[in-house]
């Protein structure tokens, strides 16, 4: 699918990657991540599953525009309909930062909250950065749904792990981005809490029509709510050269 074709018709794929490769070297160890094809449709809930070291975080960072691919046939982004999409390679750093700021929300493994800001201010941060009003009805609703309305005046340090992850989700959704990237959002909490957080997360993103990409090692936890899943196939090309290829994992 070409850029022109996509610009002419409403894009179905919000993310469209083809022939993307990322090479990383650490000492004499070479790691290559190959992504032959990675297409995500609007509103999908995607899981990227794999053991640690398989490159799932690398893929997420590329999707989050924090890392640039070493080789790339196509890296097309079209999250904000009906605005025309863009080929990532053509954009400069401020433009990439603008997409991150506006179009994406992040949920990090350990929350990634700023320790010096109160919960309320942490949640407001993306709205402030985007020049939006600090509060909105949506934010209030999200906080209520996540059950953190009572935690707003506290500093993150006084929250439990589960509460921190909920705040992280609230922050990722606060500026109502069309895409949310989550890196092991439930890795640091117990199974029960993880399931609760997962369900609330799924519910909120579904209501808001947000496209979600979750990186996880816990396929069992995420599979029930995922529309599709991707995984990795590792091949040792030589003693120190590992190639990991991202492939879709059929569900069901």
């Amino acid at each position, binding site marked *: 699918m070409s850029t022109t074709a996509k610009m002419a018709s409403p894009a179905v794929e919000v993310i469209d990657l083809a022939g993307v490769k990322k090479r990383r070297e650490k000492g004499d160890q070479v790691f290559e991540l190959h992504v032959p094809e990675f297409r995500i449709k609007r509103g999908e809930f995607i899981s990227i599953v794999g053991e640690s070291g398989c490159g799932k*975080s*690398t893929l997420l*960072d590329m999707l*989050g525009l*924090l*890392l640039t691919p070493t080789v790339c046939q196509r890296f097309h982004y079209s999250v904000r309909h009906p605005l025309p999409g863009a080929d990532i390679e053509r954009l400069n*750093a*401020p433009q*990439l*930062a*603008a*997409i*991150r*700021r*506006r179009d*994406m929300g*992040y949920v*990090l*493994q*350990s929350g*990634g*909250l*700023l*320790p*010096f*800001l109160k919960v309320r*201010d942490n949640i407001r*941060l*993306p709205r402030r*950065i*985007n020049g939006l009003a600090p509060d909105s009805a949506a934010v209030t609703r999200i906080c209520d749904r996540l059950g953190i309305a009572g935690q707003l005046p506290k*500093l993150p340090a006084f929250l439990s792990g589960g509460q921190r992850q909920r705040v992280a989700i609230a922050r990722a959704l606060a500026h109502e981005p069309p895409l949310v990237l989550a890196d092991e959002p439930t890795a640091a909490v117990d199974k029960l809490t993880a399931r609760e957080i997962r369900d609330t997360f799924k519910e909120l993103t579904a209501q808001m029509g947000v496209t979600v990409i979750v990186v996880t090692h816990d396929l069992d936890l995420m599979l029930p709510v995922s529309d599709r899943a991707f995984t990795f196939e590792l091949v040792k090309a030589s003693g120190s050269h590992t190639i990991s290829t991202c492939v879709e994992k059929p569900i069901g």
Partner: protein
Amino acid sequence: MLRLALADLRHEWILTACLMLAICAVIAPLLLLFGLKYGTIETLRHRLIQDPKNREIRPLSSVSHPKEWFETMRSDTQVAFVTPMTRQIASSVAMWVRESAPDSKQDLDLIPTGDGDPLVLENGAPVPSLGECVLTEFAAEAIGASVGDVLTMEASRMRGSRRETGTTELKVTGIVNRRASAIKAVFVPLSLLEDVESFKDGLGVPAFNWPGDKPLAYPLYDGVVVSTESPLPTLLQSRLRANTGFTRIASPAPAALKATLGYTIPETQSNILLSTELRPLADSSLAAVETQIRGYGATLLPWVRELKGTLTITGTADTRSVRIVALPEDGKRIGILPEPPWDKGSDEQIHAISALVHPDLAGQLPSADLVLGQTDQPLTIPLQLIATEGVPADTIMVGARTAGILRLATTRPLSFDASSGHFLLSRRGYAGFRLYARALEDVDGLRRFFENRGIPVHTEAQRIQTVIEMDRYLTLIFWLIATVGIGGSMASLIASLYASVERKKRELSVLRLLGLSGPRLFRFPLIQGGFIAGGAYLLAWGFFTAMAAVINHLFRGHLQAGESFCYLPVSTAILAGVIILGLACLAATAALIRLARIDPAEALRDE
């Protein structure tokens, strides 16, 4: 962003305070160092320039300087003030407050002063006029006097075994600042010192009714004619040069002798002219000659060398240059021509003012003024003219003793006291002086001026040079220390802020992840760095102010009003602040540039 940055600092206030203290710890000593350097050098420089004592040029030996010399010095542009000084020994007097008991008297030194004396004027006192005085602080303490008091001054001298005193009263018009003089001294007009000196020399001072002698002038001669009826033995002739002061002996022909003397000695006389090439001789030399020729029936005719004066006939505009000839009274005995009308043994001082002149010169009023000397202090003598045949028109003839005194007038100043008809010795010159250069820079030039003229002087040139050199060395040492200090504080500042940015890696990465980039992201550590450095600087400044106050307090005994040992001008303080803030921003930027190269992804998952 500002709020975000400050919220972070507040959240970690202990660390923020630590950073501030750390940076303050390196800045504060630097500020102190700067302050001390600036304060001490400025104080010393200020003192050197301000204190007139440092502009003083003091003679180390006493050489007599004539009055004209002081006039010349006064007109020198490098000289701010000069006053003659009497002999040191003559300046000591006793003083006490008039109303107090006389046994409270103290020996004080008189110091001559005059208009424009910087030592008095720049130390908070007016220049005293006649009947007034200014005390040094030590003198005022010693006799317990304050401004407005009337003091009794007592000069004393020994005459034989008798102690004589002369007193006068002086009003205290001022007390000079302590720095002016470390001795118990009194500033008075020069004339009072001259009077005290005269009194101590045994003379009287009519102005204060102090009894004593008059400084009578004495005659000086350049030679003497020994006139005898028959020639003196050759052996005796040669003896006349021994211990008499005369160095030359001649027997001129009568014509030559007339030309030399100005009058005629009868040809029957045998004459020897004894003379001196060097300094003229006094009466004692004549007495010595007289002793040698006793019993030979010789007549001594004192002689003075070519002596010129200006004669102004009273009542006319007739002013002419005349030759003054000594016409010895004793010549009458051997019949010299013209014949002297005076008798030896009469009051010489009185008849000294009568003179023989050509008949044409004595007009209706037989009087005239004779002016001697071309200096600015000419000696004017009123003359009684006696018209006498045989006196040339360009010559006046006076008694030998009068001529001798006029000869003296060519070597030192005299005055004529018309009331008594006495010639009096005027002050010859001054043993010393007090001289102040106009500016510090003139001191060395004046010192060379005096030393080139063989007058060794003491100046503060050495001290001035020392301060200038000390300034240079201190500046050098200061910069060496400052370089190390500045280097250290820069390193510390950069390290601290770099470390704080490093520590903020995760937070900065999160902000980057949230879409902050470029200038907006940079502002975060810049604001923090600026805030920490600014706070540290303010802290250091407070520390400096406190320490400076302590230092200035400790040294207050050595300081005068308005002086500080430790001081920084505001401009320097601002400059230092700007430099420190600049460095802080530089450090933060350096840390950020390094941070920007790291993948934010790595920073996020490094934990």
